[in-house]
């Protein structure tokens, strides 16, 4: 079908890809950091150690900026399905819309309600009530991963529905919600959120340690983050492998595109088991122009055997093949980052085991700290490339095997597509630069170590807090900007 690459298809895809890519920047940190904040607040309640409280309040300020950006870009997401993918929304709405509706109500509203209490409630509500609010923010944000990934995994492996009279009628809710792809996609994304957030906390801490500021406070944050990453990074690699297996079973075309795997069998009749480290598709789109290949590695990676065949693109009808270049490279970038983060965790663990992450000596590991700062950015790229792999690998299908992208997009003029894209390029970039800039401002200002603890003295009122902020902020202002 030639219409797959028409402007009328590409524009809505590009419009949606842009707002989604610029939205997924924020929720993973909201989700993972909420859990981390809960942990820190709980440790503070248990140990009465002030450092936990200071860390909690400091990272909470970063959390707020990030959450605000997530809301600012998230309202658009809810409307955009109907605007850009109107026919898909109509057809899939009975399942897909319902699931997103649950996300709104059981996760987003739930979270926003308790978030107000968490952020503004310090000193106004009791400590236990506050911890309860933080707990609910963390739980609600994890629930939102559940629903979003459920809706998306259903598009990857639609189950429990029949397509009749132009729409998907749900025949089995349990089968639809617990669709096959969900069981690997949900944990992979949830752990991605934790991994990203742990790396974020580690990177901010490493920056302070490099600058020799608040060393005692952030040595603790770094130490705990490295410990958490040592567990999370290998789990994520294991889950990533499980997703790969799953894609091979459910969507062989997507897997073949991710691996640039054009031929199931070689001309000599043997299974084509070579895994391409790097490759580039030829102009005819029926093979690689060049490739660096390891024999047998593909079968080992995808089937965990030495010689088993892996379906190549030549076994997929031409009109059902996804593009190759983007899934191929974005998959490799994501997997490479996953491996790099494991190495960083192992490096940190080795330093800790040899006593070099102690308060006294942590700041001298300059190269390690620089690597950790870099690791704060990498998971964002991994999340992007992972999603690009997943969404482009599913093409030309919107609902795999049941509804094509060309059947789901709204009837849009080129004007509408470009109008949307230009506007959102401006506004999404404003949110992105704004939030990054103010995250930097907060980090440069550093944690507030003087405010009395809740319960010990009275929490300053807004007026006092503002006065305090002005007094302390004014002399520091030149260095902030």
């Amino acid at each position, binding site marked *: 079908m030639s219409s797959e690459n028409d402007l009328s298809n590409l524009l809505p895809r590009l419009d949606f890809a842009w707002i989604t890519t610029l939205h997924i920047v924020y929720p993973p940190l909201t989700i993972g950091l909420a859990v981390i904040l809960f942990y820190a607040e709980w440790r503070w309640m248990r140990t009465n150690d002030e450092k936990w409280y200071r860390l909690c309040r400091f990272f909470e300020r970063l959390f707020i900026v990030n959450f605000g950006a997530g809301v600012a870009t998230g309202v658009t997401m809810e409307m955009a399905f109907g605007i850009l993918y109107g026919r898909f929304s109509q057809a899939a709405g009975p399942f897909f819309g319902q699931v997103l509706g649950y996300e709104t109500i059981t996760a987003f509203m739930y979270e926003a309600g308790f978030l107000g*209490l968490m952020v503004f409630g310090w000193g106004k509500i009791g400590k236990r009530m506050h911890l309860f609010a933080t707990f609910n923010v963390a739980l609600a944000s994890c629930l939102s991963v559940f629903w979003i990934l459920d809706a998306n995994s259903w598009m990857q492996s639609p189950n429990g529905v029949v397509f009749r009279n132009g729409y998907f*009628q749900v025949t089995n809710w349990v089968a639809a919600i617990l669709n096959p792809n969900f069981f690997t996609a949900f944990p992979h994304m949830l752990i991605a959120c934790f991994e990203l957030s742990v790396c974020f906390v580690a990177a901010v801490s490493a920056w302070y340690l490099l600058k020799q500021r608040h060393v005692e406070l952030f040595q603790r944050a770094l130490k705990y983050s490295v410990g958490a990453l040592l567990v999370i990074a290998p789990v994520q690699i294991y889950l990533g492998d499980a997703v790969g297996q799953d894609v091979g079973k459910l969507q062989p075309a997507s897997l073949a595109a991710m691996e640039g795997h054009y031929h199931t069998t070689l001309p000599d009749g043997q299974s084509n088991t070579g895994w391409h480290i790097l490759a580039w598709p030829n102009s005819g789109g029926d093979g690689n122009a060049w490739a660096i290949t390891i024999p047998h590695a593909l079968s080992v990676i995808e089937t965990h055997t030495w010689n088993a065949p892996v379906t190549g693109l030549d076994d997929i009808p031409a009109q059902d093949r996804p593009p190759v270049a983007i899934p191929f490279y974005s998959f490799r970038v994501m997997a490479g980052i996953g491996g790099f983060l494991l190495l960083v965790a192992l490096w940190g663990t080795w330093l800790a085991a040899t006593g070099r992450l102690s308060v006294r000596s942590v700041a001298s590991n300059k190269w390690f700290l620089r690597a950790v700062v870099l690791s704060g950015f990498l998971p964002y790229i991994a999340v992007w490339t992972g999603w690009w792999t997943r969404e482009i690998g599913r093409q030309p299908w919107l609902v795999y095997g049941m509804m094509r992208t060309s059947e789901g997009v709204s009837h849009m003029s080129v004007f509408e597509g470009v109008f949307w894209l230009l506007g959102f390029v401006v506004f999404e970039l404003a949110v992105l630069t704004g939030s990054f800039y103010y995250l930097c401002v907060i980090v440069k200002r550093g944690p507030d170590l003087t405010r009395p603890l809740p319960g010990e003295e009275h929490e300053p009122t807004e007026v006092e807090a503002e006065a305090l902020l002005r007094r302390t902020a004014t002399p520091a202002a030149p260095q902030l900007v």
Partner: protein
Amino acid sequence: MDILTQTQQYLAFAWWLALCLSVLIYVALDGADLGAGIFSLFVRDEDERGAIMSAMAGTWDANETWLMVAGGILFGTFPFIYGSTFSYLLVPLALALWGIMSRAIALEFRHLADGRHKAVADLAFGLGSLVTTFFGAMAIGAVLQGFALTNTPGEVPTYVGGAFSFITPFSIWVGVASVVAVLMGGLLFVRARFEHGEAIRVQAARWTNPLFFLALAAVSITLIWTGTIFPWAHARWFGSSTWIFGLLLIATLFCVFKSRRASQKDHDLAAVLWFDATAVVMGVALMATMYPWIVPNTWTIYSGASPSISLVTFTLTMGGFIPVIIAYNVYQIWVFRDRVSKFAAYSHH
């Protein structure tokens, strides 16, 4: 597409009530925030503008979640309407979304900004509020006009009518009238949230009088225009149930009168509540006028509802979550009920 069972028809009706309730709550709560935002365009003192933002700091995002709930119900329960109407409204919704984004950025970041950035944030906040109100209301005006659907056997009817059919004199007017009415609500909100004697409260009080008459005129013109050009409205208002609409009109006028009296006596909270009551009564009147249409002459509650709605999903949502959400919304407003003064300029601690 009348394909619902009897039970599903009742459920669709109940979901429609929930949808209208969410929209009404959103209008009542966030309308005040939007109005205060528009008002901030006319406030000269930078700290006072900041104080307006700080007055809604604890609640604005919770208010906005009602818009999200309305969107969620529309997508989940009325997907046929959601998918076609939103593609009809691409242009005004994109503009309203950009307004919402600017407002959100300004509210989130202003307290961190300094000097020049503060002025930019204030402008983004004020203009964002104005644009959101105008184009959001214009979209509603366009919905009242309805739109043409495709008619292909075996496919769900959808919209293919182009980018600009939403622009009519009526939809533009609804945008203008709503800006005036929302600004009125914003003035009452500012009066209720600031200490007596604050300059900003004095300014809002001075504006209340002319705005009251402007808003009254704007809403009256909208009603007359609606009754004139829409046969479905005319037939309902002057048909067999005229007395119901007569009563609703009397109730509306009573609420307007009470709100006016309360604001004259500086009973600020009462003025806000009576103003909200006016909006709710008029909203109910609009529901009664439009029933069973959700988009007049285009989609009814029953033709637009998902054939997969069930008692289980409805009960889980309505019985399990909505009451909890309402409970902590109330708790939250209670925790943050204190009046603010100008010096508590926007601060996120």
